């Protein structure tokens, strides 16, 4: 190793010295400087100037301008964050480096995971880590549309080793720059709001989703209730109708009288009275207008 370094220094010095020696004899270096300047000029004219006239893409805003930095996120989410909080200076460790938040109580395991999300190396200190695959410990996280449909691997978003925690301030996955460094790699122009799409979506059926993603949980069950309600009403209706048409049209069973009586009472008591009252009220109003 050391020999190589010596050799390189030596040859470098030799090149310099040879150039110096030839300078006064051959002015070719002047031409090379002129060509270099022309190249620089062309580079500025054709690449750097046009590029600087362009507006920054949405994904570039985080690094271009502070006022615009969070506008995308704030406009869409209505959550305004005025100050950035940089990480503390003391070394963060897994076992109790971050001050305990008294307002949030988590289970011991969840607390550990939450703290790991703040680490520069989120797998720091895990035993036999280099013998494990991602899916070995995070099997549920492999079931998502990005992995299944687009065949995107874990590392394409989460980065190479050491994999930083998503809440580590300087991580590319940190929510404030995730859209620029991760999402925009494929989704051109991704903004911060777009980056809040939940890639590792919880199962909408699961009860735990009610806590973690309530809107998904409630809307899923609402839509499911509409679907199930439609079929619960119409499937028996359709089946009975199909069978009924094989009976004579005038067929009536014995309990017809009771049913007819019940229906009459329902009609008179519940709906007709109310509706006729409404009709009277509106009819009165219309008559007055006609007279006017």
């Amino acid at each position: 190793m050391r020999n190589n370094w010596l050799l390189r220094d030596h040859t470098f010095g030799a090149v310099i010295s040879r150039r110096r020696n030839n300078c006064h004899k051959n002015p070719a270096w002047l031409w090379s400087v002129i060509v270099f300047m022309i190249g620089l000029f062309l580079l500025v004219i054709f690449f750097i100037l046009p590029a600087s006239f362009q507006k920054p893409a949405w994904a570039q805003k985080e690094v271009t301008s502070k006022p615009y930095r969070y506008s995308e996120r704030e406009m869409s989410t209505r959550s305004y964050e005025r100050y950035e909080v940089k990480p503390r200076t003391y070394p963060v460790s897994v076992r109790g480096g971050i001050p305990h938040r008294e307002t949030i109580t988590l289970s011991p395991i969840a607390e550990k995971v939450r703290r790991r999300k703040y680490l520069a190396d989120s797998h720091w200190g895990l035993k036999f880590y280099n013998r494990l695959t991602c899916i070995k410990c995070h099997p549920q996280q492999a079931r998502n549309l990005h992995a299944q449909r687009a065949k995107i691997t874990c590392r394409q978003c989460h980065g190479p080793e050491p994999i930083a925690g998503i809440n580590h301030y300087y991580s590319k996955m940190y929510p404030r720059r995730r859209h620029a460094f991760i999402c925009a790699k494929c989704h051109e122009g991704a903004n911060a709001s777009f980056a809040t799409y939940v890639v590792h979506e919880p199962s909408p059926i699961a009860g735990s989703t009610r806590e973690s993603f309530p809107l998904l949980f409630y809307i899923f069950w609402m839509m499911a209730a509409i679907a199930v309600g439609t079929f619960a009403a119409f499937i028996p209706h359709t089946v009975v109708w199909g069978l009924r048409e094989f009976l004579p049209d005038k067929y009536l069973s014995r309990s017809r009288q009771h049913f007819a009586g019940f229906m009459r009472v329902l009609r008179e008591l519940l709906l007709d009275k109310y509706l006729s009252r409404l009709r009277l009220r509106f009819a009165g109003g219309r008559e007055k207008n006609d007279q006017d």
Partner: protein
Amino acid sequence: MTRIKRFPPAQRLFHLLLMLSFLTQAATGLSRLYIETEWGRFLASFFGGYNQATTIHWWVGLFMLALLGVHVLYILFRIDWRMFPKAVYGPDSLLPRKEDFFQALQHVGWLLGKRESPRFDRWGYWEKFDYLAVFWGINILGGTGIILYNPVFFSHFMPGWVLNVLLWVHRIEAVLAIAHVTTIHFFIGHLRRHNFPMDLAMFEGSVDLEKARHERPAWIERMEQKGNLHTSMVSRAPFPLRIVYYCYGYTIILCFIYLFINGLANARGLFG
């Protein structure tokens, strides 16, 4: 056999285009949903693979939304504005009325053999339900579909995690629509004894007068009282055309049954 006009050509064309576009959307959509299964890949291969199926799904979706827009314009032109509130709430309108609720109850009573058959007017309550369900369905599916078409743009106006929710709304509504058409609409429309083997009303535009008098007596009586029954008499469609209608209709029905049965059979593949 005397026949009476039921659907003007414009409405038949709307239904025809709706059938074709909805079948395309169902096939391309299911091929995307089931792409992890063997059947889903087979289905997608008809359209040239996953990405091609997605492109077709987008364009036909836009076509369906345009169809809805044209249909709304058509309705606005069709409404008799001089008779405004009555024309919309009258018996010829597809909007639900008070009578529909009682007719539905009475019809259930008839199905169970406890009451006489209700005297239906031009539209039965199940037909109104079908029509309004399509209206609601295209709005829900089209609205969520447009947002999912360009999520980056629309996430300027809403949080990105709403996309997760919208995808599920799109899926459930689509499955509901496919299952409803396959199991309920086809059976009531074509396969029950009264209409078997196929009710050609939506294709020919006319129905048999005696059948209509039996199933929708109030409609025929209303027209007789007004005295315009004879003006809506039409002749039967020519025989070759009827053959075409049967073939076309049954092709669509069989396609939907194929999609529905395979969708159920491969449902395990969605979770495994």
